[in-house]
């Protein structure tokens, strides 16, 4: 090869006769061929290819190119507010910040990871090691260090960054749900989770409504985040979530909760309590309380002290084992499941999600059905010997009063809450008919209340109910298990003219500008009983308070009606043995002339060791009475004292000092007070009680006409177990006034007093006692 190429080197000289002739035909023909090939044919596939990519597939590549070149930043929408019926805020959103690091950036900037970890850990109150771990993930660009921190902490992080000129630590804004009134109506309102989505309660049920739509900013960006010369930006506005206005009245709710808490403490209730207050004519829920509750601001924290103690014990035990050991794993499993179940329990809205044993409160249903069907009338008479056998019923039916109620008319049977009379009524009515009314009153269907997790009650089938064994039991309120909201709605229908309503808790939905976009109101589903029967039921239910087992619910000035209930919890076992745990309840309605509000209170498993008889009449009725006492005036129900013994109502002591006796007497009479005088002056120089004090009507006050007013204090006597008359005598001797609440019957006894025995108080102080009818054993 070395030789051959060398030859042409000499060629120019060797061929001096360079052929200047034009190239021959063959060359020209071949050149023409190549010309066509390279100048035309080669370009055709290029045109075709470009046509395919740029014209035919243009849309596809354009959209993919745009998604390649654009960055989208979300603009979060504010979640709507939840208001109570008076526009008090129950849940709102506040802006917080997340702190995150960019490990890649930190690494590239050669920042001191330890310094950053220690500094951030101190500000954010977290473990510096977790920051180190996250900073070690060098390929990551986004590692959250702390979520939802308040502005103060965020500012501290910012100054930490700027003071030390650090890179790789960033903050982003986030939003956090805030519940100003803490645990108030917690199970109704619910909470939002870390992702700001509704987790429980109304927050979950109305999540879509409250959520709003996040917006976005779409910007073209060069690779490596460079700026484009011709960039474009597109905004999609965020629309904030809608707000809810609830029918819940915080005032009512707080009283409901206060009185439930007091009852739990007083009766040592083991398994919590719940209460519902509803407008019987519209179905609007004014209050719904479930104790043990939780704080939705810290919904993961367990509030049940006994569970907390157990958890502490478990974690102490766990500390004894190594993390790898089987024992540790077992204990950790126990710990986690206990914690999880305690959380689920405290979040659960028992009023709509669980059935309960209504006991004798269910008798109102049986009676309404029987009256409507004219199976009985007011003159129907029953005989109760304390026990009765029924055909096809294996066990003998016992009334709660072992000695029996004897002969009793229908009203008396209800007032006595007589089981045997109601078993008889059941048979007179028939199982199929009873089933129809249970169904018509909405106890077998969900109420449709706008709350998450509603379930329906447990009842026998029509065929089962037609057998005597079941019929005689159901008729007096055993072996049924409606949900509290179903029961409240059914009894509302009994007293409101027969209308079965759809209860509701959200009255209005507001858009982000506060404009009402949806209004909820009364929804009548059907009429289950006639207005006449309903009216009759009202008077019967009122008589239970005036003359029956619910006398402890009496509230002077207001016509309160209601029905007590006490039921053994049949399905609760402890170590394989059925417990004697009871659920005691009371359904109260007021005012009975024009029923407006219904209040159900149930106490789950009060202790049998407080010395107080465990029954709805003794325990639950006073709670409802106190709730009514706290709320009826507030709700605008006018008291009527005309037929009331004024001594059961407190009046205001007027200021009669510096008046002559005559005008003082007139002022006192206006408050239905009488007086005696001490001294012989013309002008009143002093008075007991002092002006502005509350004291029972009809009381005798002391006016001092020039004589000195005694300023010594007196000791409060022990009034426990005294009858009203005995107590009154004791108090008069002490120079104190006695006010009573509850069942003012000659055989009632004092079970509680607001000033403890032995306490010293000024002369003329009013001591209020709780009178309890101890015979109200149902």
């Amino acid at each position, binding site marked *: *090869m070395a030789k*051959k*190429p060398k*030859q*042409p*080197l000499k*060629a*120019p000289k060797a*061929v001096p006769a*360079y*052929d*200047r*002739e*034009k*190239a*021959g035909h*063959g*060359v*020209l023909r*071949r*050149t*023409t061929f*190549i*010309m066509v090939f*390279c*100048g*035309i044919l*080669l*370009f055709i*596939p*290029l*045109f075709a*290819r*470009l*046509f395919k*990519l*740029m*014209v035919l*597939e*243009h849309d*596809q*590549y*354009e959209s*993919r*190119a*745009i998604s*390649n*070149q654009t960055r989208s930043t979300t603009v979060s929408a504010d979640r709507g507010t939840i208001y109570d019926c008076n526009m008090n805020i129950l849940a709102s959103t506040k802006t917080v910040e997340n702190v995150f690091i960019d490990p890649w950036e930190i690494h590239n900037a050669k920042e001191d990871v330890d310094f950053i970890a220690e500094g951030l850990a101190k500000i954010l109150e977290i473990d510096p090691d977790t920051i180190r771990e996250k900073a070690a993930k060098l390929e990551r660009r986004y590692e959250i260090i702390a979520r939802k921190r308040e502005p103060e902490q965020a500012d501290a992080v910012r100054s930490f960054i700027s003071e030390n000129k650090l890179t790789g630590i960033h903050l982003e804004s986030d939003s956090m749900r805030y519940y100003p009134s803490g645990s108030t109506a917690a199970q109704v309102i619910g909470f939002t989770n870390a992702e700001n989505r509704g987790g429980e309660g109304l927050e979950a049920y109305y999540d879509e409504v409250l959520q709003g739509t996040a917006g976005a900013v779409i910007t*073209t*960006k*060069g*690779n*490596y985040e*460079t700026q*484009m*010369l*011709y960039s474009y930006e597109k905004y999609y506005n965020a629309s904030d979530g809608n707000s809810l206005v609830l029918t819940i009245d915080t005032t009512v709710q707080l009283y409901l909760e206060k009185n439930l808490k007091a009852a739990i403490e007083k009766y040592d209730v083991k398994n919590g309590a719940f209460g519902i207050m509803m407008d019987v004519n519209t179905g609007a829920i004014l209050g719904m309380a479930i104790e043990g509750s939780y704080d939705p601001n810290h919904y993961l924290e367990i509030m049940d002290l006994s569970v907390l103690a157990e958890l502490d014990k478990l974690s102490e035990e766990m500390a004894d084992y190594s993390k790898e050991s089987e024992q540790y794993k077992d204990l950790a499993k126990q710990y986690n499941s206990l914690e999880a179940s305690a959380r689920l329990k405290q979040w659960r809205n028992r009023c709509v999600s669980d059935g309960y044993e209504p006991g004798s409160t269910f008798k109102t249903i049986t009676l309404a059905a029987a009256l409507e069907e004219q199976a009985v009338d007011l003159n129907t008479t029953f005989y109760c010997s304390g026990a009765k056998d029924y055909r096809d019923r294996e066990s003998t039916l016992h009334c709660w009063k072992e000695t029996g109620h004897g002969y009793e008319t229908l009203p008396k049977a209800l007032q006595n809450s007589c089981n045997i009379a109601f078993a008889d009524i059941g048979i007179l009515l028939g199982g199929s008919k009873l089933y129809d009314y249970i169904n018509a009153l909405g106890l077998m269907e969900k109420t449709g209340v706008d709350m998450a997790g509603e379930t329906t009650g447990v009842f026998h089938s029509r065929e089962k109910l037609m057998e005597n064994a079941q019929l005689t039991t159901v008729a007096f309120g055993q072996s049924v298990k409606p949900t509290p909201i179903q029961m409240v709605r059914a009894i509302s229908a009994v007293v409101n003219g027969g209308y079965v309503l759809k209860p509701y808790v959200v009255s209005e939905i507001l858009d982000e500008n506060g404009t009402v976009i949806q209004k909820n109101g009364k929804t009548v589903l059907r009429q289950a009983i006639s207005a006449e029967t309903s009216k009759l039921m009202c008077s019967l239910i009122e008589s239970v308070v005036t003359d029956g087992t619910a006398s402890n619910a009496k509230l002077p000035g207001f016509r309160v009606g209601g029905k007590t209930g006490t039921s053994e919890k049949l399905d609760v076992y402890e170590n394989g043995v059925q417990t004697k745990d009871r659920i005691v309840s009371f359904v109260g309605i007021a005012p009975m002339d024009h029923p407006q509000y219904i209040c159900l209170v149930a106490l789950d498993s009060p202790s049998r060791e407080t010395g107080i008889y465990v029954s709805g009449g003794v325990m639950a009725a006073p709670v409802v009475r106190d709730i009514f006492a706290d709320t009826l005036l507030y709700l605008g129900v006018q008291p009527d004292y005309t037929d009331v013994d004024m001594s059961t109502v407190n009046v205001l002591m007027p200021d009669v000092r510096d008046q002559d006796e005559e005008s003082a007497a007139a002022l006192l009479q206006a408050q239905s007070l009488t007086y005696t005088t001490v001294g012989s002056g013309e002008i009143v120089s002093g008075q007991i009680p002092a002006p502005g004090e509350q004291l029972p009507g009809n009381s005798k006050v002391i006016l001092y006409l020039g004589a000195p007013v005694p300023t010594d204090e007196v000791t409060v006597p022990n009034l426990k177990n005294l009858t009203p008359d005995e107590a009154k005598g004791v108090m008069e001797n002490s120079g104190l006034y006695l006010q009573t609440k509850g069942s003012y019957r000659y055989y009632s006894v004092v079970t509680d007093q607001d000033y403890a025995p032995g306490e010293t108080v000024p002369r003329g102080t009013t001591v209020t006692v709780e009178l309890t009818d101890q015979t109200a054993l149902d």
Partner: protein
Amino acid sequence: MALFKHKRMEAGKPLREDTTGLMDVPFLLLVVLLTLIGLLMLFSASYARANWEKQGDSAYYFRRQVYFAVGGLAAMLLAGRVSYFIWYRSALLVLSVSIGLLALVPLIGVEVNGAKRWLKLGVLFQPSELVKVGMIFAFAAMMSAWQHKMDTFRYGVLPYAAILALVAGLLYLERHLSATMIIFLIGAVMMLLGGTKKRWLFFGAMIGVAFLTIYIMKKGYAGGRFSAWLDPEADQLDTGYQIIQSKYAIGSGGLLGLGLGRSRQKYLYLPEEVNDYIFAIVCEELGFVGAVGILLLFALLVLRGYWIAIHARDRFGTLVAGGLTTKLALQVFLNVSVVSGLIPPTGISLPFFSSGGTALLLQLFEMGIVLSVSRWCTNKEISGRSHA
């Protein structure tokens, strides 16, 4: 038009009795037009990268290219004025020197983008580009000298095959597949033009295909490129990235394009957008209409180049002009095919457009030689009217 006039040939040299015509005006205009469009598009395409790499000096690539374009146009006019016969006489010298430089690459070459294909002798250039020109000169010279023996193996096949084998061996050391392919294609076309027996060309083509197949199957990185070309979506972030980004740019251009300067893919999404992939940015900004227009200009230039070859005064002129035009046509075809994903990716720049000063200068110089051939064309339409 005196500027283009050749006063007189040197005494005693061939062609001396010939009068010269003007340079071919259409060819000249097309070259100047493509050079100007190329500069404009380079400015647009390199804007973002220059900004990014050169701290805001957005005209960095453009400025350098302008210097070389001015130098290149001067070189073109100079080459156009000089009798192309000097390339007949110096053909083997040029080839030997360029092969010598190519042989230096593995020893003292400079690495750019991971490939050692460059020499730095004052300026940075690729000896393989020089070899292409030297080879065209040498083939044309030998074929015209031995024009009556072209049907023999000894004069019609062996010398060229030997040169091609030597060059291919050196390029193999550089792992420079695309240059090897172009050199073989140019060689084959020239042998076809020069009169080598077709059966030998066919035989050579078989060997070439066999080598290419083995190469693609054996070579890891070329193999990766090959599968990425077949299915770029399979590995979007790595091997398929460039193909996909190029298609995004071309496809989003549509019929009329985003407008001059408005490419988005040039913002560092598309790699090599200043060099081999500049045509994708052209498509994105000028659309199908603009891209086809530019390809038509190239096609016209190629056609005119062959037209000059056909009308050349002598066989050497025909072969030189034909060879250089073939080189241009192949570069354009292969570049656009790669950019649009028609063939597997391989590094071929687009004449007049891609960044690279020495390449542009050399390209314009080559165009000057074609213009030189055009001055002695026999056709009256070229030289006739303003014949001196």
